[in-house]
């Protein structure tokens, strides 16, 4: 599979870490059949008296990037662990590329790879040696691409250092390289940009997008709504071990309530009076001072222009809850209620 000469949805800008623009060659990742890359149905998992996962259905198709969202303790990581064969479901069924996945099957042998939580490695081995050994473990092909992948994740200079001396971000990069080593057909990533600086995170999202464009199915858990909106085609939201919403990003956008903004003006009372006259927005007082305006972008633009026309200066205007966050919070609160 070649990652070059493709238009990605969010091409990464040149940053501190340079993901190569061309030249990353992976094995073919064409799906074997029309079956979804990853399919889970009725998954349940209890730890003692706690139901970590309670009847989750999930599907990720080849070439799709699905975001997995949920508050802490929602079951995202447990779900990823089950899909990677680290945790056995109490009930339910997992299929990888149409084949049943269960005990006795190594996920890597189906080229389903990834990591959960922070990637962990052997501190006494160098990054290069780590990838070489993991490549040997996966088969003959992986070891040949070690240098290429170290370059891809920006670790070429630190390749000889012991992993024990690596920062969290460097280990995250190594985790991504280790995942790509297996020429994945499905990639399961748990907060892959955690620990990366903004430039690295953006480049990482670019790589994920490019892999998806080449047919790799990606399931990506994240707390970052913008990240999900930027890179994902679809979203599954978990709360208390259950799926509370799933669908495409477009549908999420359509269903999401208006975002909330914090507004400070030269005359908040007059601004509130102007706002109450419009049905397209809602203005209320913020307990911390200033106003909270709930409005879509067009209505907000009109409101700001109206304030200016009335001689009210806008001193500060920040988005405090995005549409996605607002939707997310509504769903989570609904599930909790």
């Amino acid at each position, binding site marked *: 599979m070649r990652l070059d000469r493709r238009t990605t949805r969010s091409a990464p800008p040149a940053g501190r870490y340079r993901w190569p623009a061309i030249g990353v060659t992976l*094995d073919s990742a064409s799906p074997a059949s029309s079956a979804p890359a990853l399919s889970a149905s009725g998954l349940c998992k209890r*730890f003692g008296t706690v139901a970590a996962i309670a009847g989750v259905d999930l599907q990720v198709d080849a070439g799709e990037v699905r975001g997995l969202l949920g508050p802490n303790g929602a079951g995202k*990581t*447990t779900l990823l*662990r089950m899909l*990677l*064969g*680290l*945790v*056995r479901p109490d009930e339910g069924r997992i299929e990888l590329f149409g084949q049943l996945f269960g*005990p*006795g*099957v*190594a*996920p*890597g*042998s189906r*080229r389903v*790879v*990834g*990591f*959960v*939580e922070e*990637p*962990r*490695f*052997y*501190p*006494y*081995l160098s990054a290069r*040696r780590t990838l070489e*050994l*993991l490549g*040997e*473990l*996966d*088969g*003959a*092909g*992986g070891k040949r691409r070690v240098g290429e992948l170290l370059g891809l994740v920006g670790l070429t200079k630190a390749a000889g250092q012991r992993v024990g001396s690596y920062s969290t971000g460097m280990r995250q990069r190594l985790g991504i390289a*280790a995942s790509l080593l*297996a*020429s994945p057909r499905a990639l399961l990533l748990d907060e892959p940009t955690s620990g990366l600086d903004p430039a690295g995170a953006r480049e990482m999202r670019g790589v994920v997008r490019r892999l998806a464009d080449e047919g790799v199915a990606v399931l990506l858990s994240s707390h970052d709504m913008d990240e999900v909106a930027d890179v994902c085609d679809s979203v599954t939201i978990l709360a208390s071990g259950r799926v509370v919403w799933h669908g495409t990003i477009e549908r999420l956008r359509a269903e999401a309530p208006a975002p909330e903004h914090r507004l400070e003006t030269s005359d908040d009372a007059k601004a509130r009076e102007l706002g109450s006259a419009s049905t397209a927005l809602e203005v209320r007082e913020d307990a911390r001072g200033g106003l909270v305006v709930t409005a879509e972008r067009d209505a907000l633009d009109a409101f700001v222009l109206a304030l200016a026309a009335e001689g009210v200066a806008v001193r500060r205007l920040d988005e405090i809850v995005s549409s996605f966050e607002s939707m997310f919070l509504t769903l989570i609160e609904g599930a909790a209620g």
Partner: protein
Amino acid sequence: MSGRSGVWAVCRFEAAKLLAQWPTRILPLVCILGPLAFGAVLRIQSAVPQDTLFGGWVHTSGYAIPLVILSFAGAWVFPVIAGIGGGDMFAAEDRLGTWKTLLTRSSRRSEIFAGKVATACAYVVGMVALLGAASILAGVLATGTQPLVGLSGQMIGSGRALELTAASWGVSLLPALGFAALALLISAVTRSSAAGMLGPLVVALVFQLLSLVGSGEVVRALLLSTALDAWHGMFVAPAFDRPILWAAVVSLASALVFLAPAWLSLRNRDIAGTAPDERRWRRQIRVVVVATAAVALLAVASNWGPTGITEARLERSIVRSFRNLTVLQQRYLGRRVTAGAGSQMRILPSCLRQGVSTPRKGPGDDWLCTLDVFTASLAQVTVDYDVTVKANGCYTAEGPPAFIGPLTIRDRHGRPHVNPLFRFDGCFDAGP
């Protein structure tokens, strides 16, 4: 890319990890330098480690030195080697949080388990082989390649002694592998590197104590520490190999008994993140409780079954040793000894324990053997030996100097020799 990578790939992976860590890198050096240092110390001092089998002969034959080392190493060093090679094999993945890295690759859990077991076993075999080779080299350098006095007092030629010494180390590999399996079990079940590495040594100590407290053959026969004594029979004339076969059975069975729960533990476990301290402690306590219960059960059962230490076996063995060692002593003293001279001696033995309710059987340091010796040239001589008999069938006989001469005797050239009759070791088959 190929599919499953197989056990061999896991072995290479684990071997690379083992060789990248300092304890496993230092151990080969210790296995080489330790015996050489021991040999050097023996070379510069006249004292001998008499409490150990062959200890009295370390200045007489270089082959006694690796056998002395084997006696000590079997009990204490092999468990340490097993602990270093296998004790961290599973627990390290928990300590480093790398199970999720390893188990999400292309190898199945069964392959990872098999690869880890094979690598640990290969490491233990390598270290024991290295220790054995270094011990033989140390013996040859410190003393030389002289013939060795066997455990029946018979002379064993240099070449044969080398073969038997090497074979003894080879036979001892079997229980060493049993200890490796034990280390792997502790490592997998406790998920603690410290427990995995020190556990085999603690268990070895418990085994030693169990073999001391009871006189029954049933429990003793099942202990790995007993299998470590299997090589003794090769140095007895006539040699007996039953303990070697039994050691193979016990070692193999122990390995299976230890590895089966280790595998089930890995197969069935969920890799669900770092367990809370409370849950980890609960697991450790559970393991300690089960281990303590097992030890208590073994201690209670340690008197079960008949003892293999009997008056008749001891008498047969001590007569044979005395006969052979008398010939050797006479040779040292420069007296002409004809072929078959030993067999011309008539010896009537009488061995009994003093002050116990079962005077004709059982291990103990209270045996008294009286030998009435009749020769063609001498009148009847009666020699008393205080004998300490261990549960493994090996004994130490000490005689009063009035009858058998001083500890050191000199040959006609004035060279000192250990008086072979002053204090001698022997072994007999203590099996059922």
